[in-house]
């Protein structure tokens, strides 16, 4: 095959040596030249592809923190407040009333014909009127189980048929099974324990939300729509079977996404993690990059399960959890650092980030490792002092910029209060200290869309229009860096992807609009045509 020269309205390279270009020469998946037509050099005969002549090319976006569940959760019907686009391209309007919710579930029931009807993403705070009950869902069906998973995944509402299947009735006295004031079942079930009997009987168990081939393809579909050519799957047990599915599915010629799955450190005995990570690394392919490890420390801020330092939560009860004991974390971090395994450590609250910083300090003091790129994931509440320690460690942060928009009002009013909400996800402070920065969506927790994530970091606007701390805003170029080269750096892939440079992979995001023309406020409105993956154009919605 001949080399291809793509022309574009503009190419934003993210390469500081040559920030802008109009042409890029691609051959066998790699970039051979970037610049003006004159810079295409003497590569012999080339095929000219001008389909992007009125479009803008950027390096393919890199989602540094997403989950395979983004591909699998869509087997259930979407019931969230925000309009959202499914991997198949279908746009789902936000649910604004109980009637709309019932209507959508009914439609879903008709599509399916028979069996359970399950929805996800529901947020009762956004639906006016009484809280959703089993009686509302009985309007969908009285004989088929109907289950509505709430957006936080810690609550569900079930109809009478589903509750009956689980053996729940008015006499059920189980924590999390709500009753109404007249003693009858309410329909809402709180926390995993109470949800379990209903979910397993309605075929909505979380165990089914793993990385089967269709989910892997779905993640690639969502990614392409957002201009993403490399995405993490930031917690994966990576069993031999799961790995087999990943390698086989991604090896399809047309599969257009590089996946970076991180081995869950909790899936194996601690002394087996480093060995397994090394073994996995040897299985890496062009499209599946293995070897990193994920460690989860605390819970979430909006769920009140994050570990907070004093003064703790602003309103509400502290239910802080540890998924790993601090001592165990110390030992594990030391062990993995010694073995040269890169770690991605989930830390939401500042109590958790402190414990992770201490563990990294001890590990690196015992065994210095240059360019380790251990990364604190989320790290939403780190203050100046913690950031300075992170900088001294040479560690990276991947901040949860999307939280500012989706949960920012709640953080301001309820969880952590105005002051800490206005400094959370401190992108500007991190950059000022020279800390390598990525920003993320945590899809499916929030939608996979790096340009939206960049918009969040640039504008720091909440859903209600409140600005959360102008001082932590970052500039457009810094935000674009964070969703390309910055995120690639946290994955140790910056030599290969993240910018449009000679020798790198020809992975591009193809945009209809130029971010520098649309400007800061309208960054999230930029239309994405699709991607170029390994030199091949992949229009969104075509696979």
């Amino acid at each position, binding site marked *: 095959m001949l080399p291809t020269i793509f022309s574009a309205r503009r190419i934003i390279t993210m390469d500081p040596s040559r920030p802008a270009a109009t042409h890029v020469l691609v051959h066998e998946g790699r970039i051979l030249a970037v610049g003006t037509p004159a810079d295409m050099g003497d590569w012999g005969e080339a095929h000219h592809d001008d389909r992007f002549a009125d479009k803008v090319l950027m390096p393919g976006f890199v989602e540094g923190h997403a989950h395979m569940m983004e591909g699998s959760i869509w087997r259930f019907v979407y019931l969230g407040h925000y309009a959202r686009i499914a991997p198949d391209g279908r746009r789902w309007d936000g649910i604004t009333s109980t009637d709309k919710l019932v209507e959508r579930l009914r439609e879903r029931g008709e599509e399916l014909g028979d069996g359970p009807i399950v929805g996800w993403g529901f947020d009762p705070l956004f639906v006016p009127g009484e809280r959703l009950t089993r009686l509302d869902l009985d309007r969908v069906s009285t004989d088929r189980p109907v289950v509505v998973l709430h957006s936080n995944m810690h609550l569900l509402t079930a109809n009478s048929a589903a509750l009956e299947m689980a053996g729940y009735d008015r006499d059920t006295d189980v*924590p999390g099974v709500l009753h109404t004031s007249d003693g009858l079942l309410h329909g809402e079930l709180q926390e*995993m324990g109470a949800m379990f009997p209903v979910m397993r009987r309605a075929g909505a168990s979380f165990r089914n939300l793993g990385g089967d081939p269709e989910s892997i393809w779905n993640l690639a579909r969502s990614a392409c729509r957002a201009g993403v050519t490399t995405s993490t799957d930031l917690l994966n047990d990576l069993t031999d079977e799961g790995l087999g599915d990943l390698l086989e599915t991604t090896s399809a010629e047309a599969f257009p996404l590089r996946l970076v799955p991180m081995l869950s450190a909790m899936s194996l005995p601690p002394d087996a993690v480093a060995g397994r990570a090394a073994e996995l690394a040897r299985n890496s392919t062009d499209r599946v990059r293995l070897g990193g490890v994920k460690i989860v420390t605390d819970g979430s801020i909006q769920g009140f399960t994050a570990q907070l330092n004093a003064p703790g939560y602003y309103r509400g009860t502290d239910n802080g959890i540890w998924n790993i004991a601090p001592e165990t974390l110390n030992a594990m971090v030391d062990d993995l650092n010694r073995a040269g395994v890169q770690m991605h450590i989930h830390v939401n609250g500042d109590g958790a980030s402190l414990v992770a910083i201490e563990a990294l300090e001890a590990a690196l003091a015992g065994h210095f490792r240059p360019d380790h790129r251990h990364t604190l994931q989320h790290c939403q509440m780190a203050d100046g002092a913690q950031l300075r320690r992170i900088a001294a460690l040479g560690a990276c942060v991947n901040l949860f910029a999307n939280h500012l928009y989706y949960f920012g009002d709640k953080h301001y009013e309820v969880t952590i209060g105005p002051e800490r909400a206005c400094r959370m996800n401190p992108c500007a402070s991190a950059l000022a200290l020279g800390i390598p920065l990525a920003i993320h969506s945590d899809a499916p927790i929030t939608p996979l869309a790096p340009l939206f994530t960049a918009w969040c970091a640039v504008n720091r606007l909440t859903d209600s229009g409140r600005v959360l701390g102008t001082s932590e805003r970052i500039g457009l170029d810094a935000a674009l860096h964070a969703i390309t080269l910055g995120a690639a750096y946290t994955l140790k892939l910056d030599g290969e992807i993240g910018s449009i440079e000679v020798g790198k992979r020809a992975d591009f995001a193809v945009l209809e609009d130029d971010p520098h023309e649309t400007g800061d406020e309208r960054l999230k409105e930029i239309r994405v045509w699709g991607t170029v993956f390994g030199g091949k154009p992949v229009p969104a919605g075509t696979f």
Partner: protein
Amino acid sequence: MNSAAALPVNILCGYLGAGKTTLLNRLLSQGDERVLVMVNDFGDIAVDAALISRRSADTIQLSNGCICCSMGGGLFEAFERALGYRGQVDRLVIEASGVAEPARLAAFAQAEPELICKAVVAVIDPGSVEARLADPRIGAVVRRQIEGADIFYLSRADELDAGMLDNAAQVACRINPAAALFRGMDEAFVKALDSPHDPFLTSRTGARDHGDIFTRRSVILAAAPDRKRFLRFLSKFSNSIHRLKGFVRFADCSRPELIELAGGRLSTSFAPDDGSTIPVRLVAIGPDPVVLEQFEKEIKLEF
């Protein structure tokens, strides 16, 4: 979903190094029950699973985690697998992770009709429990483990001095007065394991459902009361207090007694001598906070 009888579940919780595995192994080596073990802690001792599986029917390992943060279905999957053994085993024992909150695990066994939640055990290392509780990072977790238990098991009782054991017992009983206390694995302990989990008295569990309706009060008294007078006092409240449970060592009585008030009925029974140095420890729950406040005030005045 087969039709076998519901599978009894015990949960062993306790911080790292508290002695959960030792207790589990002793349990497994002595009974003739077929026990299915679920290990929720790779912790710092990877030998856990190996040690255990030699003696039990099977071992299920589950990774810890909460769906919102880890996106893992670990717990769901483990419970589904455990349910697959129903009919082939007599009991499921879950060795919780050192940072697990028993209430979250117990909720599965309470909710699932194919499981039946038996006693939740907090394993306590007498030498470190106070320091753990005072640790700002993990104090809250250790407290919730103690709060969520029906039974305390003080580990290493045979090698530690009595003062340390008494102190640890006091610390735990003050947090959760209604829990039964054991310093070793005797017959009474094994029997207590089979008692049902009491989510109503273990304070964290059910908080969401009952918390709005009921108030709770703990009462610790330093002097052994007169039996007759004490029971007469309690019966005054038998209709205004919803439930009461606790352990009392009466003056001139050699054995402690378990006192329970439920449904307006006061009952007493002899309890195993747990060696507790607190003569009266009990929990009262009721719908009227004023009544409970009055109860607490009066009992302290009277005894």
